[in-house]
Each structure stands twice: as structure tokens, then as C-alpha cells.
């Protein structure tokens, strides 16, 4: 048996022994997602047990080095681990922006001290991070952000306002883009800093979306004092980190749809909701055709994701490819939720009802509309592809 197969056997056996049965079901709703953090409260014993066991193994951040609280897995081992988790439909024990975004940024740009302080806290699920990027007047044009950080002794003094901060009202800390040189070219005057949401002068306000949910907030900074040691990377080099993270964020848009449809078979949902004809075909030929086209596109998209991953592992950079994946993956997901609504009929119309868990179909359909806006709109992605991949003339 190869080392990798031995590793697989170990992982499989450990997961079998340690992953509670309740943690092998798809999330019934976003409320079951374990975010972690200072104020986190588990909603079930199984959730807590699973979290604690995985933290003890370092498997909440499987690919991070062991000295930073991770699992120390190689890329191949990480693939095996993910496959084994998927095999039993194991839920993620804990995840938040610390795992997805800040961790990778610190691993690449952070000082040794920052890595040793923050990465283990993230891996242990102790700190819940949020991302302070967009501002009311800096959306697609992110580099025009104005939140300022002026140096005062050993501190930055931060003033301004962020928007679309995911769960800022529940997060412990924020990684944040601030303007540290107002006179430089817009990309050149930005720095990347870390701040505690409990610092005096920080306040948040949730934003209610068309789905009725409030996953995003506005965050206000009023003379917020942040130690200068919390600067990640060099002064005025924050845009490099921001771009790296945006690319990383786009990478996360892989084959699996987010939300309600994760791990679910749309065609089977449609068969159940609409019914079948006497030959077992979905009894709505036009919907059947639309679903087939969607599934074909989804299968093909996964093929590109796989190919891109394989090439990245072989050392070819992702480059602007991530813009392609972000663009197509999110458009695909919107189509998927539209078709789900077509399939669900009346159930999809319910907003407050028990049988739909409080209008889950409608709410998640509405939520999916944001996919092609957040993290860079589809139009921005097409622009990046035009210039960086196709090298078309500038306007």
C-alpha cells in the first residue's frame, strides 16, 4: 500500500470513529453553519463534539503547517482528506473568513509573529474574522476606497466606513484595507491591517437583503486606534495582498453550489415536485431540457475547475483564470436557483411557512442573485478576462 493509501485508510478510520452521525447530513439551513469565535454557541452536542475533535487533530485547517495549528497535510494528502470528508458527507467542523481568506494571506505575507499569533487562533475556532474591503463609493472600483489610517505614534487612527462586511456584527476581528497614503496613485496608497471589532470607535449596522436575511453589515470607524504591529506586509503594499485574496476568494468558487442546493440533486427535486410521465421522464419537457442543459454546463464547469486545479498543482499559475471560474460559476449558480424555483412551483412562493422552513426556496433563490455581484461582478470579471487573458485594446 502506498503512503497515500495508508494515509487514506487512517483518515477514513478516524472519521468513521469520530464524526457524529448528525454531522454527516447536509446543513438544513445556514443557521447550522459553525462559524466559531469568542461568542460562539453550539446548537447541538454533536456540533460541539465534532468541532473539538477536529480542532484537536488540527484538521480544521488541514493544509496549514502544524506549528501554526494546522494539519500539516501535503497537497495530495489534503485531496485525500477532502475526498474522505465528502465520502461520508461530513460537515465542515468550523469555518469563517479566517480560514478562507486571512489564513492564506498571512501564510504568504504575514510576519512570523503574526502567523504564530493569528493562525492557531483561527485553526482552534477561537476568533471569527470578517473582511473589510468594499465601501459605499468603492464597489467594483475597490481601489478607490477612502477609509483612512493615519499614523499617530505606535498606532494607526482609522476613520471611515465599510460596507458589505459579511457578519461584521458577529465577528471578533476584521482584516481591512485602509488608505495610508492619500497622495499616491489609488492602488499604491493602500495598506492591509488587522483590527479588533471590540476596539472603541467600531460600530456595525446589519443590512437587510431582498432575501429578508442580513448576512452583510455596514461598519463604521470613528478614530479607531489600531497598533502599528497589526500591519500585514509593507506599508502601502496592501493592494497586492487584496488582489491575492480576491483571486483566492474566486478560487473558492469551485464545482459545488453554495446554499440550499449544495449536495442536492436538482433533477431529483424536480421529479419529486413536478412528477414523472409514464416513461419516468420529468413531466415538464421544457424544464427537463433546461435542467439537462444546466447539468451539462455544471459537469463541464467542474471539468474546467479540475483542470485548473491540476495545472495549478503542476506549477502553472491560476492568473486570470480565476476570473473565468468566478464569472461562470456564479452565473451557473443563479441559473440553478432559477430552475429550482421553476421546479418547486407553489412551494417556492412561500415566505413564512413551516413546510419550507421559513421560505427557504424563495430566500435562497433571492440570495443567489448576489453571487454575480459579491467578490467582483460578472462585468468586472469579463473586463479582467478581456484585458488580462484576451489582451484586447484598452478603451
Amino acid at each position, binding site marked *: 500500500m502506498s503512503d497515500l493509501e495508508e494515509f487514506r485508510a487512517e483518515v477514513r478510520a478516524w472519521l468513521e470513529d469520530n464524526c457524529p452521525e448528525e454531522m454527516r447530513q447536509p446543513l438544513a439551513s445556514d443557521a447550522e453553519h459553525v462559524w466559531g469565535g469568542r461568542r460562539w454557541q453550539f446548537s447541538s452536542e454533536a456540533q460541539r463534539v465534532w468541532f473539538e475533535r477536529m480542532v484537536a487533530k488540527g484538521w480544521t485547517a488541514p493544509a496549514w503547517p502544524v506549528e501554526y495549528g494546522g494539519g500539516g497535510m501535503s497537497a495530495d494528502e489534503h485531496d485525500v482528506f477532502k475526498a474522505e470528508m465528502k465520502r461520508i458527507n461530513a460537515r465542515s467542523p468550523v469555518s469563517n473568513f479566517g480560514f478562507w481568506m486571512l489564513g492564506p494571506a498571512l501564510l504568504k505575507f504575514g510576519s512570523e509573529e503574526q502567523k504564530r499569533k493569528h493562525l492557531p487562533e483561527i485553526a482552534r475556532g477561537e476568533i471569527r474574522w470578517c473582511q473589510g474591503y468594499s465601501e459605499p463609493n468603492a464597489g467594483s472600483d475597490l481601489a478607490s476606497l477612502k477609509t483612512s489610517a493615519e499614523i499617530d505614534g505606535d498606532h494607526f487612527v482609522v476613520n471611515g466606513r465599510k460596507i458589505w462586511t459579511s457578519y461584521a456584527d458577529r465577528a471578533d476581528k476584521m482584516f481591512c484595507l485602509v488608505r495610508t497614503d492619500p497622495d499616491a496613485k489609488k492602488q499604491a496608497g493602500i495598506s492591509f491591517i488587522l483590527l479588533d471589532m471590540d476596539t472603541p470607535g467600531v460600530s456595525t449596522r446589519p443590512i437587510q437583503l431582498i432575501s429578508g436575511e442580513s448576512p452583510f453589515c455596514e461598519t463604521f470607524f470613528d478614530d479607531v486606534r489600531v497598533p502599528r504591529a497589526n500591519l500585514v506586509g509593507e506599508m502601502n503594499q496592501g493592494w497586492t495582498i487584496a488582489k491575492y485574496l480576491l483571486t483566492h476568494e474566486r478560487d473558492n468558487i469551485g464545482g459545488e453550489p453554495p446554499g440550499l442546493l449544495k449536495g442536492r440533486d436538482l*433533477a*431529483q427535486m*424536480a*421529479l419529486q415536485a413536478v412528477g*414523472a410521465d409514464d416513461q*419516468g*421522464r*420529468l413531466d415538464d419537457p421544457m424544464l*427537463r*431540457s433546461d*435542467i*439537462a*442543459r444546466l*447539468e*451539462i*454546463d455544471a*459537469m*463541464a*464547469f467542474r*471539468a*474546467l475547475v*479540475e*483542470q485548473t486545479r*491540476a*495545472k495549478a498543482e*503542476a506549477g502553472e499559475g491560476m492568473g486570470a483564470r480565476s476570473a*473565468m471560474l468566478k*464569472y*461562470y460559476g456564479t452565473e451557473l449558480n443563479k441559473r440553478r436557483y432559477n430552475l429550482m424555483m421553476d421546479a418547486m412551483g407553489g412551494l417556492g412562493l412561500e415566505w413564512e411557512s413551516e413546510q419550507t422552513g421559513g421560505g427557504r426556496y424563495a430566500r435562497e433563490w433571492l440570495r443567489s442573485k448576489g453571487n454575480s455581484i459579491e467578490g467582483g461582478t460578472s*462585468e468586472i*470579471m*469579463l*473586463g479582467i*478576462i*478581456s484585458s488580462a*487573458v*484576451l*489582451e*484586447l*485594446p*484598452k*478603451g
Partner: protein
Amino acid sequence: MILNEEQQMLADLSERLFADKASVDTLRAIRGGSLGADYDTDLWQAMVESGLTGILVPEAHGGMDFGLVSAGLVARETGRRLALTPFLSTAVLGAIAIGRAGNAEQHKQWLGPIAEGALIVALAVDESGKHRPERVAAGATAEGDAFVLGGEKTLVVDGPNADLFVVSALHDGKPALFAVDAADAGVTVEAVTSVDTRSMANVRFDNASAQRLDAEDDALDDVLNAGRAMLAMELVGLSRAVFERTLAYLSERKQFGMRIGAFQALQHRAAHLSVEIEISEAMAFQALAAFDAGVADASQQILAAKARAADTARLAAAEGVQMHGGMGMTDEFDIGFFMKRARVASELLGDANFCAERFARARGY
């Protein structure tokens, strides 16, 4: 998937060979009748010499015994260069039909000649203008050791040049594959030139003597899937080629004092198309590799690949013509050839609707 060393070598070889030998000028010469043949005989000869005709033939019969991924790399070049050769009909459909369904004697009789370029094979399956392989009226009856076959087939690609037909026909009420010598007195070939200058035929069989190919029952599915996979690669190749030309045009053509590629309305459409092409190519490669590996859902993947490649190629060609403006409508520009070829390659062995429908069926809805 990423190409292995053997496949990369083959990709380089076929790219060089086609860059060197295949050209739209030859296509024009074939269309105008000045070449004196209805396919690119020089290119075909070069393919024979490079061993590409035996790409799927076992080594024991003088072939390379490579997989569908490798064959697909050749098919991609045929689409990219608009090359007209009997590669699909002979080196892929013929070699797989005889290889999978033929017995040892039949292998010996035909596979060697395919590899040597001494035999052109054409697959005769369809009986109506839309691909419906299970709709078979042609029939074969046993006569001693052999069979006699009757029926009419259409959309027989490379039919006018074929030495041998592989024909689907009913025997005892069940469809099976038969081999019929094109020189048989019972065979009548009516040549048809398609919109993309492909040589096709309607073929009538009247009591033609036939040999049964019966080593494997479901060989026809494999043959058709292999053909669809090749057409998907051909469509990917032509999508890339037409897109390259369109991009070049966007970067040089000036209107309103600027290069038209600077207009966002065109940029976004070009960017979208580039994503479609990347995705269709990744799907096609994955499907080919699945076929080679004998993966359970390989046929689903191939249906997905063909459906998607067809849609992508038609979009690429349509955008190509539109973005070339009036020039795209002229026969002098090559863009129209891609549109024509995309139309034909999409239709053959099942169009996107057919593939999507079969895909849904295979997925249980």
C-alpha cells in the same frame, strides 16, 4: 486532465503536421473541383506516413494503439484547420467498430489496411435526417455462413470514397453491425456534398452480401460515443480557430477612430465566448479520458461534451461572422467556412438537443 508525455508528443506532432499540410486553400480547391479529389489526399497521405490512421489500431495490426484522448488531439486539428480527410470515418469509427465488434479474422482482414491507409471505411447508421441510431429498418438475413443485407442509409460520411461500409441492420429483430464491401453489386452510392464540403452519401443496399460483426453486443454504442467525442474535439478546435481570427480582427479593425476591440460591448461578448471555449475543451478532454479509462459515466460525459462543444462552436462561428461585420458575410473571408463546418459537425451523430435528451435519460429524469 493534463496531457501525459505520449499525448503531448502527439499533440505537437499533429499540430506541426496540420500547420504544414492543411490549409483553407485546399478546402477551396476541393470545393471548386480543382484538386481532383473530394478530400485532402496529400494530407491524408502524410497522416498515413505519421501513423495517425492507425492511432486506434492495436500494435499487432500495425497501429499505435493509443486512446481516444490522443485521437481527439488529431480531431481538434482537423477542426482548427478545416481539414477534409476520412480520419473520423476510418481511423476512429471504422477502427473502433471493427476492433470492438469484429472477430480475430475480421481484425486481420481490415485493421492492418486501416493503419496502412489502404482502406477507407464509412459508417452507415442513420436512416433519417436526424440522428436516431435505434430507428433501424435495414435488415439482414443469414444465407449460409454469410448474410444478405437490404436497406437505405443516409448521412454516410466519406461514403463516396469508402471501400468498406459498417452498417447497422436488424437481424432476428435485433440491431447488429455488418460489414459490406463497397464494390458489392448490391451497393448503390449516391454522393452528396455537404454545406461544409464534406463528402457524404446516401447508400442503398439491395441484397448486398455482408459479414456480421458480432464480437460485442453493445459495440455500436461505443462506436457512436467515440465518434461524438471526436466531433466534440473537432468542434473545440474550430471554435478556437474562429475565435483566434475574430480576436485578431477586433485588435486591428478601426471604426470611430479606435480599434473595435476596445468597445466594451464586444469585449464582454468575446470574454464570455473565451470562457465557453475553455469549459467545452475541458469537458471534451475529460470525457475522452473517461472513455479511455472505461469510467461508468463515460457515455454521459461524452454526450455532455458533444452537446456543449456544438453550442460553443456555433456561438463562436456566429460571433465570428457578426464581429467581422460585412466581411464576415463574404466568401472571400474564411470565417464562413467555420460556421458551415460547425453546423455539420454539430448535427452528425446527434445534435446538442439529442445529446442533452440522452443525457437526461441516462441521469434518470
